[in-house]
């Protein structure tokens, strides 16, 4: 890999601290255990949820609930997880966006950096496309998980996990994932600045060509 793009990565290295994947996932574990900023810890959240649920159904214990308590707790845990993942991945993506902006600075010394961005963006192989795919896949996963939990809530009352069994209608109702590829214009904001940088480089090249042409013309003229 030539120097320009590598310099871009190094600039990002120097200006933004490396993220440690294990620390990131430990943070998510802590979020579940301790709660997000302003939220109570897991035990308190569980107690609150139990009290709210009993009050909502007007019963004295979870055994008296007309729906599955296991299903409700699973559902509540998943929904809290959605909040955690949304927040932490938004932070991660914001950090990557900052790195990307820093890497773009290297386009001043090498057009290759901008060329790679535009090329990958148009080919659909850049991070924007990957992120869009992940967003759709995660949205689909949440639909499926919510359906599964909802079925357990509705049909699992008074049953252990071993006794509960979903029937065919649930699986037939589960949607099939279909990826909708984004249009070129939808993600153009990711590489439009790089395209402008390339135009600037083209302008510089043409200017250099014009100067060289004029000098040559002066040299050969009698």
């Amino acid at each position, binding site marked *: *890999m*030539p*120097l320009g*793009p*590598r*310099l*871009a*990565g*190094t600039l*990002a*290295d*120097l200006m933004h601290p*490396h*993220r*440690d*994947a*294990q*620390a*990131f*996932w*430990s943070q998510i574990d802590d979020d579940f255990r301790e709660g997000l900023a302003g939220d109570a810890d897991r035990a308190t959240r569980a107690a609150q949820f139990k009290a709210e649920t009993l009050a909502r159904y007007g019963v004295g214990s979870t055994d008296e609930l007309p729906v599955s308590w296991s299903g409700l707790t699973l559902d509540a845990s998943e929904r809290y997880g959605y909040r955690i993942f949304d927040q932490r991945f938004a932070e*991660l993506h914001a950090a*990557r966006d900052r*790195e*990307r902006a820093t*890497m773009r600075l290297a386009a001043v010394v090498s057009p290759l*950096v901008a060329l*790679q*961005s535009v090329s990958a963006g148009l080919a659909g192989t*850049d*991070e924007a496309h*990957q992120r869009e795919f992940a967003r759709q896949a995660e949205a689909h996963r949440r639909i499926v998980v919510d359906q599964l939990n909802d079925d357990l809530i509705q049909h699992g009352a008074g049953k252990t996990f071993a006794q509960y069994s979903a029937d065919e209608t649930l699986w037939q109702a589960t949607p099939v994932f279909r990826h909708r590829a984004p249009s070129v214009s939808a993600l153009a904001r990711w590489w439009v600045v790089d395209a402008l940088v390339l135009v600037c480089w083209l302008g510089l090249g043409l200017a250099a060509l014009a100067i060289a042409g004029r000098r040559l013309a002066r040299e050969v003229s009698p």
Partner: protein
Amino acid sequence: MMRLVLHDLRLLARQRLVLVVLAVGLVASALAAVNGARWIDHLTQARSGFLERAAADESAYRARFVSDAWTDVDSANAPFTTRRAFAYPVPLLADFSVGRSDVEPSMARVRMGYRSDMLFRNYQLDNPERLLRGRLDLAFIAVVVAPLLLIALGYGVFSADRDRGTAQLLLAQAGGMGRLLLARSVNRVPLVLLPLALAALALVAVGPQEDGRIAAAALWFAVTTAGLLFWWAVILLVNAMRVSAETAALVLVATWALLVLVAPPLVNAAARAAHPPPSRMAQIIDGRFAEQAATAAYRNDHPSDGTPELQRVKDVIAEYQRISMALEASIGPVAQRFDDQLQAQQTVVSRLAWLSPPMTVSAALAGIAGTDTASYHALRIASRQHLHRYTAALDRGIADNRLFTLADHDALPRFAPPPRPLPHFIGVGWTLLLALLFGWWASRRYAAVAVG
């Protein structure tokens, strides 16, 4: 001879190009050294942070185990709830050659039910765009930038004198072609090596103080020198041809582009074409089918209705263990095929790398640093063996249908890294042989010029 060397040095010092070369070398090496120092610090911090968290978790788990709140059901569940973390050692010279250390996993937790092909999870968070562009390390400077600087200093080492018509006069003053070229070589090659040496010394000084690091750094620098000697031999050979300095520069830069920029992706593409990478998704799907089959087979053989609570938990744990072991056995060949394919790719890359000495030098540098493919392959095999030992240790209690004890917990195996594979220096030997060959060829041509 010394007077000749000093005279050439004085002439060299008057050239602005020398200052530019020195400045570029120093700035690039300094940037690489800073980047390398930050990288090895990141690896060290991430490793120690992970192991500290794991030790705290293990300590807390052990405290629960000995507390009054711990029940027999907890003991029955313990094979599943207990975990052991491990981390690879930080590569010895990851600050010199980042190599594969920014893409390979190096830390994991082992627990019941883990498969060897899924041992490392969620280990990569780096920006893919940044990973794609690579990191600026000292190895990159040594293999890519330094040869260019050497070409800038040496493209006209003799052809420029020939262009000016002063070659014969200089030869007469120097007392022979050999003395002239030796004086010029002695002044130019170290000028390019100097920034690399300073950066290497700085990294040794500020980096982790580990046994063998200084010797490895010295070896690393020796291989770098061998790589640059190859380029100097090429420069001398091109200068020995009857070409102008401009043509020599063009030929040398084209050779550099071919060997440094074009050859590596071509070799990798050839290896991928010869041995297409297996589909990871297919491997995952195979694993799912194997899991379903193992689960169905076990449950068919072990109906579990009407058993008391404690025995039921033991049965669930035993079921999970048996299914996991059956799954590991059935997924083994699939994982092996995956590994074999990657190894076959690597073999092709290693063989074709002989076409490009800079590739062999780069591989040797990564080998010395412990960031090459072979080092990570050895660690991967060791981590799988560790998983198998861990599973076997768990299985002893489960097979006897007894409760998991604190002694069982404490006796669970810990990861021991394998000895570092010795780097291969055959490629470096080949590079030096080529350097000698080109040097000999060049000397023959220069001898003819001197006689003429």
